């Protein structure tokens, strides 16, 4: 084999080998949980960091759970993933998109079974439509008893 | 001159070789060949493209037009590397290291000529006393001699020497000529640039003249 071909073959084999090894390692890594966002179910199962380590809690603001403490900026609400509920307390200004049924990501720590949030971010989903359409959809859902799905909660 | 090892094709040949920088022609088009045992002297004033020609031949610059061949085959890294020894304006050695360390490193990259050793080539160029001194402490002429020692140590048969006479005294110039002659005697070839101030020893050497 002439040296040029031989060298090209070696380089190609090296690249293929590296890609193969890297792919193997990636597959291995993908099988490990690497999320840094915990759902209420995971928190309930004790998978989330404890002992004052901050982590992110993601879920939907439960209907009828939002209470503003009068005279303060403190808000209490419940984050749910429809299986487990975690009570959350937050002091500060809430973003515009924060509302019942909204996907929300909160950062904070667990203190005595309550999540004390230092930051609340509303996750906005990818749906854009005029208000009339939204009303029509909501109405149709109510009439047909379509189960209300979590909006945007599934986005990565 | 013929040697039993001389192949039919020239070691190095250029065909309509030209180079332009920013669309200003630097040299060429040139046609020449370098056969075993031959020395070609490239002459020309400053800025006539002597160094550029050598850099193109050494593959450090892409040829603008034309073709370079080694042993009759189009030049490629494989046909070129290891055969071409380059001595340029820059020494190609680290000044913090001694001549021995530098030469040993280069011998590691290129391999060694049969029978040559770091000490013997340093002796040949007459500065064996400076073998273990950092190059920083050597004079310009002595550094040049270390560069010449490299040519003797490494097994390339095509020497591309850019201004090898610079910084050398009369003895040094004689030494360069003697080394080139010995190299050509053993089937090697050399392409040497000079701005014309030095008379080349070999009266049979062919000349390429570059105009600025």
């Amino acid at each position, binding site marked *: 084999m002439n040296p040029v071909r031989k060298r090209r073959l070696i380089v190609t084999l090296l690249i293929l080998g590296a890609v193969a090894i*890297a792919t193997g*390692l990636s597959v291995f890594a993908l099988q*490990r949980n690497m999320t840094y966002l915990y759902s209420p179910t995971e928190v309930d199962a004790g998978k989330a960091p404890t002992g004052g380590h901050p982590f992110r809690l993601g879920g939907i603001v439960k209907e009828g759970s939002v209470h503003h403490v009068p005279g303060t900026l403190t808000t209490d609400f419940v984050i749910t993933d429809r299986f487990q509920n975690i009570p959350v307390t937050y002091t500060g200004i809430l973003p515009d998109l924060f509302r019942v049924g909204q996907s929300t990501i909160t950062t904070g720590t667990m203190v005595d079974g309550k999540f004390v949030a230092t930051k609340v971010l509303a996750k906005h989903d990818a749906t854009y439509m005029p208000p009339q359409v939204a009303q029509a959809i909501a109405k149709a859902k109510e009439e047909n008893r379509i189960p209300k799905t979590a909006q945007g909660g599934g986005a990565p | 001159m013929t040697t039993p090892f001389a192949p039919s094709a020239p070691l190095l040949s250029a065909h309509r070789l030209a180079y332009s920088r920013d669309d200003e022609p630097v040299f060429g088009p040139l046609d020449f060949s370098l056969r075993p045992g031959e020395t070609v002297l490239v002459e020309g004033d400053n800025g006539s493209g002597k160094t550029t020609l050598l850099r193109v031949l050494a593959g450090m610059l892409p040829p603008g037009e034309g073709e370079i061949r080694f042993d009759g085959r189009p030049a490629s890294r494989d046909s070129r590397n290891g055969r071409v020894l380059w001595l340029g304006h820059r020494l190609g*050695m680290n000044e913090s290291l001694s001549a021995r360390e530098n030469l040993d490193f280069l011998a590691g990259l*290129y*391999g060694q000529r049969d029978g040559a050793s770091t000490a013997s080539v340093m002796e040949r160029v*007459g500065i064996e006393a400076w073998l273990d001194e950092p190059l920083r402490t050597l004079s310009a002429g002595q550094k040049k001699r270390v560069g010449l020692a490299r040519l003797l140590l490494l*097994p390339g048969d095509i020497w591309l020497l850019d201004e090898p006479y610079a910084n050398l005294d009369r003895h040094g110039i004689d030494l360069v000529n*003697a080394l080139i002659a010995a*190299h050509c005697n053993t089937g090697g070839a050399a392409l040497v640039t000079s701005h014309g101030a030095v008379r080349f020893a070999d009266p049979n050497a062919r000349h390429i003249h570059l105009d600025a």
Partner: protein
Amino acid sequence: MVTAVQPIANSTPVAPTTDQRSSGTLRACAALLRRDFTLAWRRRGELFLPLLYAVIVAALFPFALGPDPELLGRIAGGVLLVIVVLAMLPALESMFRSDLEDGTLEQWLLAPQPLALLALTRVIAHWLTTVLPLIIVMPLLGALLNLPVKVLPVLMLTLLLATPLLVLLGAVLSALAAGARRSGILVALMLLPLAVPVVIFAAGAIAAAQSGMPYVAPLTWLAAALVLAIVLAPLACAAALRIAVEA
């Protein structure tokens, strides 16, 4: 002075034979390693500068943030990671500069060895001489910043995977910048976007270890990237060196 025409060494033909050219790829790498180590030893004073820098910066953090051990312990992992990256930067920038200036790179280019392999060898020598000492002093720096003891091994392991990756990337950028007239902050500017994933995964592993979570996944990602970079970065580096020499 000898002026007579006399044969050099023996009168063996100088036309290189195949074994002369293909043999010794390993020998070439060893020669380069030996040369770089010798050079590093000659300039051993300079090798302490990154270490000194790292210690000074680490010592500044308690002054800036207050000596609260808990706070320091919480941020120590990330802080040390950033300190290592910053301490590596100056040496990365000049990885090929002196070799370009004294013409050694021209000799590399004409040598019958793959340039990419020489570049990889240079990366290894660089990592061993300038980065490994930084990793070795990590326990000391960790103690300064009250890094939890259980995090220290993970931090060291992370750095063992992340720093070679950064040196490989840095070698490409350093080779690219070597031919430029002024590099200044250029290498840092170019390194930032390329280093983002490395830092993210390294920090992820450290943070996970700190909060008692599994840290294998980010380390595996780093290993995967390292394997790819070991093959691809030297090729890119060789291409960059060819551009740098083409002056």
